[in-house]
């Protein structure tokens, strides 16, 4: 199969999953649809020569974030959403705004000059790792500290305080 056919398949997974996320009434199904969308995006990363990012996408989103989201859904009450509508009153405006933004971006993109993405050879992951740990070492460390601080903050926020249930 040509890359374009594979791109269309992965894109269909991504867009279909995305529509499922915003369209379904069941919140657990929404999280699972997000998994479908993210795996489609991982396929697109593979087609765009970003093998490392595709692996990170599968590991981090598929393995970690979806599980955490499912835990959060199980710890909060779902009954109040099970019967009623899932959208608020402003959903027609929201649909209009999103559609308008999509048309605007698509027209702008179609008028720009975007050529074909050509094939390339060479060890992608190797060069990416070298670049990440030499040229981008300090931003990388800052990002890891950010992640640590955010997770400690999450624990502090989610933990019940003294005397609270």
């Amino acid at each position, binding site marked *: 199969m040509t890359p374009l056919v594979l791109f269309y398949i992965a894109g269909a997974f991504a867009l279909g999953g995305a529509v499922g996320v915003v369209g379904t009434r069941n919140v657990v199904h929404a999280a699972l649809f997000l998994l479908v969308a993210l795996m489609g995006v991982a396929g697109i990363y593979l087609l765009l020569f970003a093998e490392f990012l595709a692996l990170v996408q599968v590991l981090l989103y598929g393995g970690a974030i979806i599980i955490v989201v499912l835990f959060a859904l199980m710890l909060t009450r779902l009954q109040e959403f099970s019967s009623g509508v899932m959208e608020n009153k402003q959903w027609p405006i929201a649909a209009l705004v999103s559609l308008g933004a999509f048309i605007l*971006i698509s027209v702008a993109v179609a008028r720009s000059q975007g050529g074909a*993405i050509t094939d390339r050879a060479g060890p992608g992951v190797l060069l990416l790792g070298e670049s990440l740990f030499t040229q981008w070492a300090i931003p990388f460390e800052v990002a890891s500290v950010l992640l640590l601080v955010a997770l400690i903050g999450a624990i502090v926020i989610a933990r019940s305080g003294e005397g609270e249930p």
Partner: protein
Amino acid sequence: MITLVHVQVLSAGLFCIGLYGVLARRNAVLVLLAIELMLNAVNVNLVGIAAFVDHSKFLGQIIAVFVITVAAAEVGLALAIILRLYRNKGTTNVDQLNLMKW
């Protein structure tokens, strides 16, 4: 042959679906999922342009790595805040969480 326009239109589609989810959903966790969609749309755009412009520098891919890191931190913090709100307010409906609304 995949062109840059394909990638950018796909990215715009993902972003706008996510935008609709953020604006229209009532459950705070579902709003968070839609934000994840928008962040992934940005990453698709970055990776696509990185593949189109220059194969050797990996600038777009490295920024995408950082975006994924920030997204993971954001999900952890946001879910903790949602759990806390649920414990204090008894709801995750964003229409009722108008404590800071003027």
